[in-house]
């Protein structure tokens, strides 16, 4: 079984994240870049399947700037067998449509049985890339899975919908995305870090993947940011230390604000 995990490099959510006011793009220089936590969980799903099924091949794949190398190396150190980096200056500021087209082309060039992604990236991605990739490839998708059961020829799971749960399955090959209900990822160990340096690492440009943006995206709608405005930060109000009467004082505050 060959499993490809889609990983995206995002600004660390523990830091303050900023947008470039002129382009509306995420200011990636302004914060530390890490692999999105949800994608590490996606990799964990693949690696735990590999632990139990010898002969499984796990590939980490990312589209992004030069900085993505670090994240892909971490994926290799965690236990992936090889990495694919889609890198092309024309992809700077790519919207979901361009991203999905580039990822789908890279997946076609690599071949796979199962693609695992995160349900939603934390840097303002909209939780749409995995299903877009599936449509490009003409495959079934199952997104927002809260549990995953992989077998030799199919994948099944439970999908959270907001209103309840669906039990779903699809024949392989298929594209799935998982939620943070799945376990946290393992840490890379020393041996993993050392062996990562020797693992295959392929860099592919759009040309390598047979994409000429002027042709491939002709007539295709592209989302563009018109304007980005920073809202004034919130400030602290009253702060009291409880000396036995704080509950009553809070009730008074709520009454004064017509909140009760």
């Amino acid at each position, binding site marked *: 079984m060959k499993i490809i995990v889609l990983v995206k490099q995002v600004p660390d*959510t523990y*830091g*303050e*994240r900023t947008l470039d006011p002129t382009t509306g793009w995420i200011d990636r220089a302004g914060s530390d870049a890490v692999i999105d936590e949800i994608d590490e969980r996606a990799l964990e799903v693949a690696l735990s399947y590999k632990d139990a099924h010898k002969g499984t091949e796990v590939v980490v794949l990312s589209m992004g700037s030069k900085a993505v190398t670090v994240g892909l190396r971490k994926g290799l150190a965690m236990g992936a067998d090889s990495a694919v980096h889609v890198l092309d200056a024309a992809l700077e500021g790519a*919207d*979901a*449509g361009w991203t*999905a087209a580039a990822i789908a082309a890279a997946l076609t060039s690599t071949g796979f049985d199962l693609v695992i992604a995160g349900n939603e990236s*934390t840097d*303002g991605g*909209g939780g*749409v*890339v*995995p*299903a*877009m990739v*599936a*449509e490009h490839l*003409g495959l*079934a*998708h*199952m997104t927002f899975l809260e549990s995953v059961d992989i077998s030799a020829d199919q994948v099944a799971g439970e*999908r959270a*919908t*907001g*209103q*309840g*749960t*669906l*039990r*779903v*399955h*699809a024949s392989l090959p298929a594209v799935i995305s998982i939620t943070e209900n799945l376990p946290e990822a393992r840490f890379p160990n020393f041996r993993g870090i050392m062996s990562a340096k020797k693992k295959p690492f392929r860099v592919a440009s759009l040309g390598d993947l047979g994409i000429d943006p002027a042709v491939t995206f002709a*007539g*295709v*709608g*592209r*989302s563009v*940011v*018109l*304007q980005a*405005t*920073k809202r004034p930060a*919130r400030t*602290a*109000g*009253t*702060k*009291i230390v409880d000396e036995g*009467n*704080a*509950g*009553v*004082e*809070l*009730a008074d505050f*709520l*009454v004064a604000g017509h*909140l*009760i």
Partner: protein
Amino acid sequence: MSNILALIEVSSNGDLRDSTSSLLAAAARIGSPVAVVVTTPGAGSALVERLGNLGAAQVFLAEIDQGGTLLVAPQVDALAAAVSTLAPGAILTVNSVEGRDVAARLGVRIGAGLVIDAVNLRSEGLTIVATHSVFGGAYTVESTVQGGPMIVTVREGVIEGAADAAVPVVTTVSLTSDASNSAVIDEVIDVVVASTRPGLRGATRVVSGGRGLGSQEKFSLVDQLADALGAAVGASRAAVDAGFVAQACQVGQTGVTVSPQLYVALGISGAIQHRAGMQTAKTIVAINKDADAPIFDIADFGIVGDVFTVVPQLIAAIESRGKK
């Protein structure tokens, strides 16, 4: 006015989802709302009058037998069929799990650009402009689609007001979806809302509990205050991870985003990822033992104290006022 397609979500027993009214209101802001619905053959006509009352000028019924068995393929096919007959100015779905999947697949199929998680929509001449609230409300961003069709997913419950009622023009088509590239639904387990408590999304008051509540049993303090205030119950990720409360209650970056009149944070430190889901609340109240907890930086009223002494006193004070 151009046609604006709105994909209406229907529950497993055929009822319109609560999101219907706000999605049609969103469509009415930028054109003439067309409700697109997937139904089993014959079942759609029962929905037409209600869709008209909620503002649909037209109803496009796609009768597809596989509606309950194939995962979103019927919804994608229904919209694709409506696009080819109605030449819409834009296509709207709810920014739900299903809505985003449909938007994603349809976008690739018809070469549309996607605008995700809009909180408002307006027309500027021929351009449709969507507004977003990004990084937990730290930024307001406006976007549009250039060079091709536009699909927008609209955040649930944020667009208020209702479109004017209409007597809709009805189109019925019968379709069959390709089962070979769709996942199969084996079972639908809809949540039965047993409590009378308001839902988290769109709630006007929210009381959330964090790791500071200590255990699942003691988390009931959050429920008690929520009931005293008529509020929805929320939680931090740490409280969810510890099993105090269901994942659906998680507020924050990777949970629900709320924007209530009143948000009460009990035993929550206020990590940046939690604040991303609640910092646009009108009034924020926090109770935390640690005077340095970051939640106090954004609280309008902060109490440095123990939730287990302050909250019971607060509930008693609220109740005694109720009796006066």
